[in-house]
């Protein structure tokens, strides 16, 4: 069996990377103070970024998570400010809810909403079951929110948003208050539980892929700096205390990447181990990216703390996303409980 990515998946990632090289330079990222550039998002949507996982009847391309993984890694490598993880997760969840028929009214509106999201004309976001705040709610046309075991689509204008501090300022965070009559039910009962699991897994998977890209870029920048920066008459990268740190961070990222790919495969193929595989991936990706961020910060002599340093753009993305959608500890706990449960089950008569 061949598990490698297809030529088409590589080509799509290359197209996204090429677009971002031109339209998402560090200068662009720094200028996107609000966290959302409509023109760049539209360009990404034009090549399919917002519609890959949306079902075909709703203006999407009917692809799956594996079609997105490499492209999302490229978004991380460019420190893309737009909420690609949340919007993709929200659009996929809404598409799935409509496909399964687990809906209760408001169908026509949702079809329009989803088609506009696929075109890049409207942004969707979703509350992560692990997190207290909703990311990018201010830029979204609609929010997918969970309440008392049911999922709703809430019009942004019908919700009261209260800004919350965010370590990555362009990644805006909000507490959301809304009246039940302001939301439209899309899933309840068993369907809602399935949606919660799917949202959590997809958000964790895609933020893991984004973190891989950001970590890769942080290490590239640091290696290049360590070769240029001269101290004691030689490049600092020639000192073991510097290069071993960088090598360790690199190894951590390389070891996390196949776990993220495996999680993508498990999720796409509906494997019984999907929850565990996604959590193993997010735990590894979060830990690897945090390590890469710490090493990059130190190798650069802490200049990355300043807003003026390009490094800062990637550091804050890593600090935010390594904790969002469940941090490494939370996901290690989920891996552990799945293993322990299995062992207990196996011992039962």
């Amino acid at each position: 069996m061949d598990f490698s990515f297809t030529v088409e998946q590589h080509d799509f990632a290359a197209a996204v990377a090429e677009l971002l090289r031109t339209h998402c330079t560090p200068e662009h990222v720094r200028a996107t103070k609000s966290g959302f550039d409509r023109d760049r998002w539209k360009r990404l949507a034009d090549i399919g970024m917002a519609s890959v996982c949306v079902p075909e009847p709703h203006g999407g391309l009917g692809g799956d998570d594996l079609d997105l993984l490499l492209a999302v890694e490229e978004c991380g490598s460019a420190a893309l400010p737009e909420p690609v993880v949340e919007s993709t997760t929200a659009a996929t969840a809404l598409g799935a809810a409509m496909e399964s028929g687990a809906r209760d009214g408001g169908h026509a509106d949702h079809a329009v909403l989803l088609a506009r999201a696929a075109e890049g004309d409207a942004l969707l976001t979703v509350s992560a079951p692990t997190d207290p705040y909703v990311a990018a709610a201010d830029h979204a046309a609609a929010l997918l929110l969970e309440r008392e075991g049911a999922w709703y689509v809430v019009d942004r204008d019908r919700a009261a948003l209260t800004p919350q501090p965010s370590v990555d300022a362009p990644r805006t965070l909000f507490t959301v208050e809304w009246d039940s009559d302001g939301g439209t039910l899309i899933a309840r009962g068993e369907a809602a539980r399935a949606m919660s699991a799917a949202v959590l897994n997809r958000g964790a998977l895609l933020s893991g892929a984004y973190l891989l890209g950001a970590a890769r870029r942080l290490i590239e920048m640091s290696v290049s700096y360590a070769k240029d920066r001269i101290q004691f008459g030689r490049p600092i990268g020639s000192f073991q205390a510097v290069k071993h740190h960088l090598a360790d961070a690199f190894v951590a990222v390389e070891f996390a990447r196949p776990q993220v790919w495996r999680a993508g495969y498990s999720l796409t193929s509906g494997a019984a181990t999907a929850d565990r595989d996604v959590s193993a991936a997010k735990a590894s990706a979060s830990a690897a990216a945090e390590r890469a961020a710490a090493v990059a910060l130190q190798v650069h002599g802490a200049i990355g703390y300043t807003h003026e340093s390009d490094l800062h753009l990637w550091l804050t993305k890593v600090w935010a996303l390594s904790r969002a959608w469940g941090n490494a500890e939370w996901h290690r706990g989920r891996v552990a409980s799945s293993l322990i449960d299995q062992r207990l089950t196996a011992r039962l008569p």
Partner: protein
Amino acid sequence: MNIVVLVKQVPDTATERKLSSDDNTLDRAASDGVINELDEYAIEEALLLREKHGGEVTVLTMGPDQATDSIRKALSMGADKAVHLSDEALHGSDALQTAYALSKALGTVEFDLVVLGSESTDARTGVVGAALAEYLGLPQLTLAGKVDVDGSAIKVQRQTDYGYDVVEAQLPAVVSVVEKINEPRYPSFKLIMQAKKKPVQKLAIADAGIDAAGVGLANATTETVDFAAAPPRAAGTVVQDEGDGGVKAADFLAEKKFV
């Protein structure tokens, strides 16, 4: 209107490019192949003309098997089909022979317009478009910064050092384009998925009626006699400013005839 776009796979300009010491031709294994950057503008212009006037866009490339990567890129941008002229006998062909071979390959395709980039980033001769037009006996409109087609008439703004000339001709014609003409689109997921289903016709020289004596390294009209790596850049002169820095700078510029 049926348009043929000529594309060439070249070594990535971001990598170190090498010649092979065996026969002084390009060492294709030494760096990754990518589509010639200027050809992307030609593809974009062809797609824009198709959107306006209808018809089909066919990609034609001459090169070894790896050139399929560039064909796929062109199809992923939206071209309809491709012709791949590939034959061991073509190895080492120079610009003139390439134009001859392409003119024969074009004989197998119906077209109203041929569009190509103004030069390739590897050889940079910039003559294939002109030579091709000669072989085909068609008008050549080179260095186009703007293209307008009206019925069977074509009008381009030909970029010059001082501005542009307006050049007109009747179709069919050969047009080469410069970078400022448009902004090439990025391949989309949808077109990438469709690209694998688009027809790619493989041609050997016999299929195109190309005379083996007219192509290949042994018959080339130009020859690479020798090559050497560019010498490393010499260190500059450091001038200590002891109050006379301005004079020294002016002397330096005067010596180099800048002032």
